[in-house]
């Protein structure tokens, strides 16, 4: 499908409100007409490719697939009533029948009369009668028949896109249009976020290597189409290897970011390397580890009050050097498996001697015997540090520590292999554990939970409170959130701490560790973007295009975005990529945005380049900082700064995980703001967005039952009721997306107007909703009178916004 046609089709569908019509609804999921049509089109396109249809047939299949349910626009269907072909002859609100609308569109797309007639003949319109019985529909036949196209669209693509569960594939495990093509699937029972995403990727790769093509994606699995079952069965033997490889790839990719190595660093008075698994991953992590140590206060500017007899600067230098030796000693201890590995010891000795040829053997002996870490008297410490310093080649005080750190990096790199062996992540072990999450195809693995179920649960077997696997470790409060009084696993109202701990399994623990690699803030909000029931390869390509734009920073501009929505909601009735590009172009011209990006880049340069702007500019191949800002805002710079705000963690076709730092307002007021962002994302991605309340908890809402899930916060529910936004078990419906977006935009605009007149208090967003509208205006007028400026425009604008909030759309 060429870009121009796709653009035209999106414009057509959004203009007619397809994103607000529920095409599929049941307790197993809801999907909008737009997302269903795009899915059927995507699946039909892929099947047409696989079955070797001509370009013309492929185009007909795509258009037929996109338009196959157009009859669902009919008001009868919108009111959840069945409609027949007779109803379709009525004129709609725009004075045209549905057939006339289709002809208009197809003519606009440049199709010939014959092609248009063929499509019209094959269209079932989504009417209840004759759904899949082409022969009954053709009276009289106007164009040429394309039986293969018909079968692909109506019997295969529509069927696959309408599946509510992966298991339903088993009922017809082959395609109707081509008997030789079979269907199979993989599914997992727990959706954990990063780990499951890795698992999905590994399985996709395995199936693709065996010659199978992924065709429909669900959050918990994927349906594939292919021929050779035997080859696939053989490949299953390598599943552990595939998962381990994918996990290794993920961690190595993250390790280049500059944050992973830092996570391994502890403070000098406690465990100096508390997370060794992050240190030995790659040369990048080793570099980041030592760079982070160099910036520690105990190295850069240590406390020297207890030292007398020498100058303060010399004492600082010596203590800094000594503390560096403590870190090195811990590295050596870990890499030699507590000094037991003689080969590692020899490697270290050689590396140390070649880096520091003039340092006396005494120092080396101190490191190997671990004396350094256990020496108490300060005089002894000073003696060792002096010995070390005297053996160094660099005598210039400013460069001394930097030189030593760079040599320690080399030594650690020499030892890295041993460190990974003893303290690295056990990729194969994790892969084995992760295999337990796969529910289809089943693999023979030892499952403790299963055994316990069959043989009777052993008394007191602790289970992971997040996923019910066998618990192995104790969790810290931040992993499971602060809602401890609302779980059955702990005494009501008791606080986590001391002996009172949650217990979690090793996979949930690893998941939390992997998250800590990507999240800079401890307090973060987490969203999941899941397909509306399922998504086709084409829908996924659209997601990818949005993500490739790298304009996460846009989501931090609530004021501008809400302003755009209020001024012209129709602007969003275009293909999302184009909408985002347009918004981005406007934002790039804004001075305050540019200034903020410049500051973010400067702090990035300070952190990564030690303030050396010119080397940064030459690295990113631009001549000035202003150009770098331009490049950054256009998403052409491959760096992440604080300005990015929203982090997209892992993208598989099955779901996307997103997070951003928590807002500092009251919880329910924050929820209103999050809801606005989620609705916007749902609108742009054509998917459902879920707010996860407990961090690290597996995704429980795997089925999309609306546009956005915000949970069941009482304060928020009251506010949404007042706004006339219906919620069903925490879900905002697909039909309400635009209405809710408009109303929330009005609230956000009012919030900023009030902030502008110095009304700044916690929970302001909620007050705007809960107070009578006149009270809000009264507050603004009073505040304006205090400032002696009667802002007539502000008042009029706020009255308009309040009217918008009250309106029942």
């Amino acid at each position, binding site marked *: 499908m060429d870009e121009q046609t796709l653009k035209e089709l999106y414009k057509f569908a959004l203009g007619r409100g397809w994103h607000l019509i529920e095409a599929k609804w049941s307790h197993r999921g809801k999907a909008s007409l737009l997302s269903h049509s795009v899915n059927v089109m995507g699946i039909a396109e892929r099947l047409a490719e696989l079955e070797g249809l001509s370009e013309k047939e492929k185009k007909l299949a795509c258009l037929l697939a996109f338009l196959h349910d157009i009859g669902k626009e009919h008001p009868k269907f919108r009111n959840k009533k069945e409609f027949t072909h007779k109803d379709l002859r009525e004129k709609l609100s725009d004075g045209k029948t549905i057939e006339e609308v289709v002809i208009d569109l197809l003519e606009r797309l440049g199709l010939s009369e014959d092609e248009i007639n063929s499509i019209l003949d094959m269209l079932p319109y989504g009417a209840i009668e004759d759904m899949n019985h082409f022969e009954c529909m053709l009276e009289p036949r106007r164009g040429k028949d394309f039986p293969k196209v018909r079968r692909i669209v109506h019997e295969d693509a529509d069927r696959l896109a309408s599946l509510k569960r992966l298991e339903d594939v088993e009922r017809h495990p082959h395609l109707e249009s081509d008997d030789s093509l079979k269907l199979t699937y993989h599914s997992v029972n727990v959706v954990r976020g990063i780990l499951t995403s890795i698992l999905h990727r590994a399985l996709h790769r395995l199936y693709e290597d065996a010659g199978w093509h992924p065709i429909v994606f669900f959050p918990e699995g994927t349906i594939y189409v292919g021929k050779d079952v035997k080859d696939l069965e053989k490949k299953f033997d390598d599943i552990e290897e595939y998962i381990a490889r994918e996990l290794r790839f993920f961690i190595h990719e993250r390790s280049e970011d500059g944050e992973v190595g830092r996570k391994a660093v502890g403070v000098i008075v406690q465990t100096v390397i508390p997370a060794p698994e992050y240190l030995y991953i790659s040369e990048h992590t080793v570099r980041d580890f030592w760079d982070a140590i160099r910036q520690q206060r105990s190295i850069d500017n240590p406390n020297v009050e207890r030292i007398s007899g020498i100058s303060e600067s010399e004492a600082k230098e010596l203590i800094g050097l000594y503390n560096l030796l403590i870190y090195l000693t811990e590295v050596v201890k870990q890499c030699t498996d507590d000094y037991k590995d003689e080969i590692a010891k020899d490697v270290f000795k050689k590396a140390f001697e070649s880096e520091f040829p003039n340092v006396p053997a005494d120092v080396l002996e101190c490191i190997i015997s671990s004396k350094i870490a256990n020496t108490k008297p300060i005089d002894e410490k000073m003696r060792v540090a002096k010995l070390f310093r005297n053996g160094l080649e660099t005598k210039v005080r400013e460069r001394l520590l930097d030189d030593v750190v760079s040599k320690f990096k080399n030594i650690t790199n020499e030892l890295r292999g041993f460190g990974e062996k003893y303290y690295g992540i056990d990729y194969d072990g994790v892969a084995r554990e992760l295999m337990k999450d796969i529910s289809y195809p089943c693999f023979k693995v030892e499952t403790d939970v299963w055994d316990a179920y069959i043989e009777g649960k052993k008394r007191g077997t602790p289970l992971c409170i997040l996923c019910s696997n066998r618990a192995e470790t104790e969790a810290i409060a931040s992993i499971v959130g602060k809602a401890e009084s609302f779980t059955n696993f702990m005494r009501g109202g008791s606080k986590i701490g001391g002996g009172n701990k949650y217990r979690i399994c090793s996979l949930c623990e690893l998941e939390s560790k992997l998250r800590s690699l990507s999240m800079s803030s401890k307090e973060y909000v987490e969203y999941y973007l899941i397909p509306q029931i399922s998504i086709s390869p084409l829908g996924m390509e659209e997601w990818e295009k949005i993500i490739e734009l790298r304009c996460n920073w846009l989501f931090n501009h609530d004021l501008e975005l809400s302003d755009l929505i209020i001024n012209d909601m129709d602007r969003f009735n275009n293909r999302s990529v184009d909408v985002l590009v347009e918004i981005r172009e406007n934002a790039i011209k804004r001075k305050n945005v540019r200034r903020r990006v410049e500051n973010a880049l400067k702090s990035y340069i300070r952190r990564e380049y030690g303030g050396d702007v010119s080397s940064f500019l030459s690295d990113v191949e631009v001549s000035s900082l202003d150009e770098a800002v331009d490049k950054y805002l256009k998403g052409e710079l491959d760096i992440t700064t604080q300005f990015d705000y929203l982090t997209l963690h892992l993208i598989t076709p099955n779901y996307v995980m997103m997070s951003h730092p928590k807002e500092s307002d009251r919880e329910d007021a924050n929820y209103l703001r999050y809801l606005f962002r989620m609705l916007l994302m749902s609108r742009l991605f054509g998917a459902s967005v879920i707010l996860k309340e407990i961090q690290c908890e597996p995704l429980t809402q795997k089925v999309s039952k609306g546009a956005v899930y915000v949970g069941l916060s009482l304060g928020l529910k009251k506010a949404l009721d007042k706004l006339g936004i219906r919620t069903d078990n925490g879900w905002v419906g697909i039909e309400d997306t635009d209405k809710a977006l408009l109303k929330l935009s009005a609230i956000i605009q009012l919030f900023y107007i009030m902030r502008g007149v110095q009304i700044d208090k916690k929970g302001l967003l909620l007050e705007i909703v809960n107070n009578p509208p*006149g009270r809000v205006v009264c507050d603004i007028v009073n505040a304006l009178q205090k400032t002696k400026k009667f802002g007539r425009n502000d008042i009029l604008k706020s*009255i308009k916004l309040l009217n918008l909030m009250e309106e029942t759309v």
Partner: protein
Amino acid sequence: MRPIYWTKEAEEVDREKISEMEKKTIEHLSDYLKTFYPKKSGEAEYSYTKTSIMGPIGKLLSAVSSGKIENPDALIGYIVNIHNATADNPLSKHGKEHLENGVKALLELRAVAPKRMWMRILREVDYAVYKNKLEYILGGGKNE
């Protein structure tokens, strides 16, 4: 364990009817207020405080909320008196009609609305009338 108490609403409230009546009241009172142009003393500028914008309706609502006057005729007389004392223009026939209908609707509303909802309703009427009047003024009403 503490016993669980279930509460059941005994008083039947027709919320839709109340909200309809509330809207009607707001409409009438706002329409009356559009005919009220406050007196201006000398060179002084118009004030935009809530009291000055609400004019006689502010007085009406506080009289109703406190139960100071309950007779509809007495209430209308009370407001007409305030109108004549504070307005630049005499009370028009059109204005009087709206005032009478407004007061009548307000008293009907009080009779229908449950006691626990009454203060909230009154607050809503108060601020809604304020908002409508302010919109009228800023939207180019004669009063500006």
